[in-house]
């Protein structure tokens, strides 16, 4: 006997709604058991987590702070995944976006006055992220180099490059030697809307809507879905697969680059350690949980950010070790990912000698 995952032909609406709810209940049950083992009341802990993430204006604004980069990188990754272009380099694209934005904010301030500096800085972030994503796209389309490896390795290059800058030439001369660039001038700060939550939220929501419409209504969106289903079929239809991959990756990278640009202009106001807390990697999970639907990305990001912020409450208020918070985050994600897998795929047991027909790989 052999287990295979078979893609379901159609998924009932009921399953689409019920499965996430059931998965969520299972996650609560699992993490509840773990909390009980640690001698902490699961209900008060969950209440504290929820209250910490959504219960107060301050907590909610911190959840938004985390949700914004998750939304933008999540959109970028989902877009690339639609093409079956495995862009796992959102982290690097985000970092390069932050670097270019910092460059403009730090060194162009004399030439560009007023809020225009912020606009140019944000655009520079988008362009930089796009170019960074363009490298694997170019290598893939021209030289058939596997994009998974290239995007992954470029993450490290980007992060080390940004470290070189703020440990080295960009280090704040007034910072007493502590790594980090000088603070940006205030006209390069992204306005904040509540607490630390900044205007990047509007970009993220608007871009999610635009992307959703573009993917459904334009020729480009149509080409992406054809290529995603079968590049061969796309070629027969006369679609330039290479050009579409290139264009899509530039947009994907620009979205992550904008995430980095918003982080430095909206939150840290300088280039320093902790620019990304693994947002670009979490974006991969978000893209899958949203089933690559741009409209779902903001909501999934918000839930994910809530879990991250709420998870800290376990430590802050309940006095449990920080690892417990991280384990709870994992226990919440795991059943949800499993749930989405089983919604899309059906498990079938087949005899080992029989060749499966039409089997697609799992997520």
């Amino acid at each position, binding site marked *: 006997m052999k287990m295979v995952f078979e893609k379901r032909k159609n998924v009932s609406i009921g399953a689409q709604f019920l499965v996430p709810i059931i998965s969520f209940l299972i996650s609560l049950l699992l993490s509840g058991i773990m909390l009980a083992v640690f001698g902490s009341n699961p209900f008060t802990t969950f209440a504290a987590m929820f209250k*910490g993430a959504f219960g*107060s204006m*301050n*907590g909610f604004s*911190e959840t938004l*702070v985390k949700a914004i980069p998750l939304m933008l990188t999540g959109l970028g990754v989902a877009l690339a995944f639609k093409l079956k272009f495995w862009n796992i380099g959102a982290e690097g694209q985000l970092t390069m976006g932050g670097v270019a934005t910092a460059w403009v904010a730090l060194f162009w301030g004399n030439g560009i006055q007023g809020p225009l500096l912020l606009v140019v800085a944000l655009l520079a972030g988008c362009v930089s992220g796009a170019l960074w994503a363009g490298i694997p796209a170019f290598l893939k389309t021209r030289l058939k180099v596997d994009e998974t490896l290239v995007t992954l390795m470029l993450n490290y290059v980007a992060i080390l490059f940004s470290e070189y800058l703020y*440990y080295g030439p960009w280090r704040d001369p007034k910072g*007493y*030697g*502590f*790594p980090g660039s000088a603070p940006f001038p205030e006209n390069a700060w992204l306005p904040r809307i509540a*607490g*630390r939550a900044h205007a990047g939220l509007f970009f993220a929501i608007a871009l999610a809507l635009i992307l959703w419409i573009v993917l459904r209504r334009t020729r480009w969106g149509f080409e992406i879905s054809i290529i995603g289903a079968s590049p061969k079929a796309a070629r027969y239809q006369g679609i330039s697969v290479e050009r579409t991959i290139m264009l899509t990756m530039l947009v994907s990278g620009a979205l992550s680059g904008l995430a980095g640009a918003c*982080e430095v202009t909206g*939150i*840290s106001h300088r280039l*320093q*350690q*902790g*620019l990304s*807390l693994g947002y670009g990697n979490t974006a991969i999970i978000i893209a899958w949980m949203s089933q690559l639907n741009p409209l779902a990305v903001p909501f999934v990001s918000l839930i994910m950010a809530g879990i991250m*912020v709420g998870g*800290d*409450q376990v*430590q*802050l*208020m309940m*006095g449990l*070790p*920080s690892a417990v918070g991280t384990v709870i985050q994992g226990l919440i994600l795991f059943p949800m990912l499993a749930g989405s897998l089983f919604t899309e795929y059906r498990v079938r047991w087949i005899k080992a000698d029989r060749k499966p027909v039409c089997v697609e790989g799992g997520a």
Partner: protein
Amino acid sequence: MKKLVLGLLAFAMVFAMVSPIVAQAKKPLKIAFVYIGPPGDMGWTYEQERGRLAIQKAFGNKIETKYIENVPEGPDAERVIRQYATAGFDMIFTTSFGYMDPTVAVAKDFPNVIFEHCSGYKTADNMATYFGRIEEARYLTGIIAGRMTKSNVIGYVAAFPIPEVVRGINGFTLGVRSVNPKAQVKVVWTNTWYDPVKEREAAVALLDSGADIIAQHQDTTEPQKAAQERGKYSIGYDSDMGKFVGDSVLASATWNWETYLTKTIQDALDGKWKTHAYWGGLKDNVVQLSSISSKVPASVQSEVEAAKKKILGGWSIFTGPIKDQNGKVVYAAGQVIPDDKQSAMDWFVEGVVGKVQ
């Protein structure tokens, strides 16, 4: 069933009436600590946590303390500090240099909360800074290292090239050279406070390049362990590392936060707390020299004891003549480096091999 519900209701009402009175009678001062590593690092955070436990014990139910561990320096630290402030904490201690700007930002938004930042230089009406002259204890450990080295190369695993660390290296080196002018102190930067793997790698690199004693400015005991595994001595920092690693740790320059914390929390309880910049030394008991390993000969121990007496008597370890790395006298005989120059120190004294960058 009805009776049970009624009983519960009655109980709830009585409780609701009584509880505000009870709460008012002794509402504890809520205090939070933000840590960069885990208390189990046996070094920096271990000492911070020892301070927290000591004050919790001393003040009993007058205070209620909480802590969060493993908070990275940088923008995300602001969120954590903010969460404590929002949750109604009265006093928040942020215990790493990189928390300084985030603490300033949150302090601005919560004028009724007291903030205390350890090891920085910025203050506000509701934000104090506190630290200790650990270099005084380091000077004493330097005497031991200077006497015990055979290769005349002492390795120093250092975190960031900021004044706090530079001061420590200079104080240590002055101690070393006061007894052994031929010895050199080789510095390697790790650019991290807490990273057991990097700390160990740096120590190994120093041992490979000829160092026979390892000193350090990090958060864990890893450099000490690396030295011990090679059969070499080390000088500890933060806590009495000999207790955790063994007698290959000749002595440690240690923190002792209890005295300071007790005073500032008492002030807060009495409503007398005012912003301040505390910078205590050996005589204030905020920094200490640990017990000395039995591997150190008695003659060296008494040499250390004599120097300690001198410092306790008011002598500054930064008293000239002090030369820089080029051998140029920057502070003449008898001249003392003033505090403001000490807190911005960005140059090495003669005998240090390495660059501040």
